[in-house]
């Protein structure tokens, strides 16, 4: 890893070094500023948060940090609005869907990875193509089917809806993890007289566990962040945080304080999850096509 550092720059002159530092510093500021503004605004009163300096007044920027932290907006979310319930809805729906997707996905992925099927390439294309369909396209027929089945605006409906993108994702990603485990290890166990199931349980599954956990986390992340499915399929009785936030804006007035606080609640846990599975992120987000 350390040697790869010198891929492009021939000899690292002082100019190159400075250029690297400047570019990365600018990118750092660009990345962090919006998040910082959001967090700071969520613990300010709206009056304080709306005090931007006059156009061109660069020194005034420092006033951003002059305020007394307040939890008013967070209190409003939990006591005036029912954000506790919405968080609960989101947790139940995303965790259940992730459990279904990872449970069936792990079994299926192992089968796909080890077995030989006549339609293997077709199955692969089918699984990947689910990622190409625009979300709106998936929602239109689902909406109609769910309305007929009577699961529209229920948590189970939402769980099924999330599974439409979680299951193919888990199936494909975990298949990649199983493909990485050499067959020889399993064959040695077969010689010892183990059954298929025992080989899977005792040998292959433990080896793939880190990858499976990462897939689970990504499934939770995708469903927790989802807005469209939750808005159309979930609706009012199964409201999740992403659906509840836009409702904080009324026609007359946008309640920016609570919106910023709710955004913090929505975003911060997911950033932690992202850091947690940092090692598998590239593989996860490219459906296993690129590895770090």
């Amino acid at each position, binding site marked *: 890893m*350390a*040697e790869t550092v010198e*891929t492009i*720059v*021939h000899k690292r002159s002082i100019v*190159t070094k400075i250029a*690297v530092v400047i*570019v*990365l510093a600018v*990118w750092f500021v660009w*990345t962090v*500023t*919006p*998040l910082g*503004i959001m967090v700071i*605004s969520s613990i300010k009163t709206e009056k304080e948060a*709306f005090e*931007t300096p006059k*156009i061109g007044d660069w020194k005034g920027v420092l006033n951003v940090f002059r305020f007394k932290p307040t939890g008013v907006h967070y209190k409003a979310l939990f006591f005036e609005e029912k954000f506790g319930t919405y968080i609960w809805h989101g947790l139940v729906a995303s965790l259940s869907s992730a459990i279904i997707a990872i449970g069936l996905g792990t*079994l*299926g992925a192992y*089968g796909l990875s080890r*077995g030989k099927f006549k339609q293997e390439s077709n199955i692969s294309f*089918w699984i990947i193509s689910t*990622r*190409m*369909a*625009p*979300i*709106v*396209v998936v929602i*239109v*027929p689902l909406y*109609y089917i769910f309305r007929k089945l009577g699961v529209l605006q229920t948590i189970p409906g939402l769980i099924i809806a999330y599974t*439409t993108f979680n*299951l*193919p994702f888990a*199936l494909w990603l975990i298949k990649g993890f199983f493909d990485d485990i050499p067959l*020889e290890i399993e*064959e040695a166990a*077969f010689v010892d007289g183990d059954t*298929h199931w025992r080989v899977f349980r005792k040998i292959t599954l433990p080896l793939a566990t880190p990858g499976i956990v990462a897939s689970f986390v990504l499934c939770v992340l995708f469903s*927790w*962040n989802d*807005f*469209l499915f939750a808005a159309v399929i979930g609706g009012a009785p199964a409201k999740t945080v992403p659906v509840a*936030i*836009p409702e904080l804006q009324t026609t007359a007035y946008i309640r*920016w304080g609570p*919106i910023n606080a709710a955004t913090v609640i*929505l*975003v911060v846990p*997911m950033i932690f999850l*992202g850091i947690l599975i*940092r090692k598998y992120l*590239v593989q996860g987000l*490219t*459906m296993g*096509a*690129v590895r770090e």
Partner: protein
Amino acid sequence: MANSNTVSVSGMELSVLHKKRYGLSFYGWMVIPAVVLLLAITVYPFFWMIVMSVFKFAVRPGAKNEFVGFQNYIGLFRDHLWVKGWGIQAKYVSICLVIEFLLGFAIAIFLNNVRRGANTLTTIFLFPMMVAPIAVGFLYLYIFNASFGWYYWFLRSVGILQKGSILGDLNWALAGIIIADIWEWTPFMALVLLAGLKKVPLDQIEAAKCDGAGSVRRFRDVLLPNMVPVIVIAVLIRFMDIMRYIDKIFVMTTGGPAGVTKTIAFYLFDVAFHFFELGRGAAMGFVLMLITIGLAIAFVNLLKRKGVQR
């Protein structure tokens, strides 16, 4: 060698035995639950989408749906919003892709040149990807606000923007959404391309160095050809995702002002869930999906033919 041979036979024998006793190999049984569920939740709705696209749906539940044949599809070509939407979508998707790719590549190369703290820095850089698209929308709606938004203040102070607002301006609205998308997804490009950069074989670069190739030539003739597969994947996935998501537009402009940010995907959402014309929505969705998949396949084939000399 002989040993491993007998081993694989014994594994296979077990498979055959299993198939005889249970009708399907062990692996087959493992796949069945996932495949059946996947059929039910992806293929069945897809089939319904096609059926729906030839009906005119009654808005009131209980009333009868009317069979209209291909009228929903024919109507698309007469719908000027649909045609205009494709133009906006093309602009949105292509500008996002180009900027995110170039910036992402640059960031990846710079990160690759950092010795200490590269890991921490990369981790911080990928924060935006974890942020829910809807939250990104509100974040930027807030900092673009014309009376208290910090980006608005910055753009005015620097002198890029003279007056008016960002998201309410006919020329700036789409740019605002593009900026938000660049913030959110450039890290993805950077992260994936960085992973690719780390895999470029060092001996090739050393060899080029010994032959006296300058850094530009090393980049063009050694690095780039090695990176092609990773670039294809990064761009392809980003392309499909920009086509898929409408969350940011929903929050930031809801298609306005005067429809200049009404991309095709957003227009579809409007038709299906605002006007509840599910039949027309399904027809649009079918066309949109075919075009997305078609473009994705064309892109892969194009790059394959252009030649990765590996």
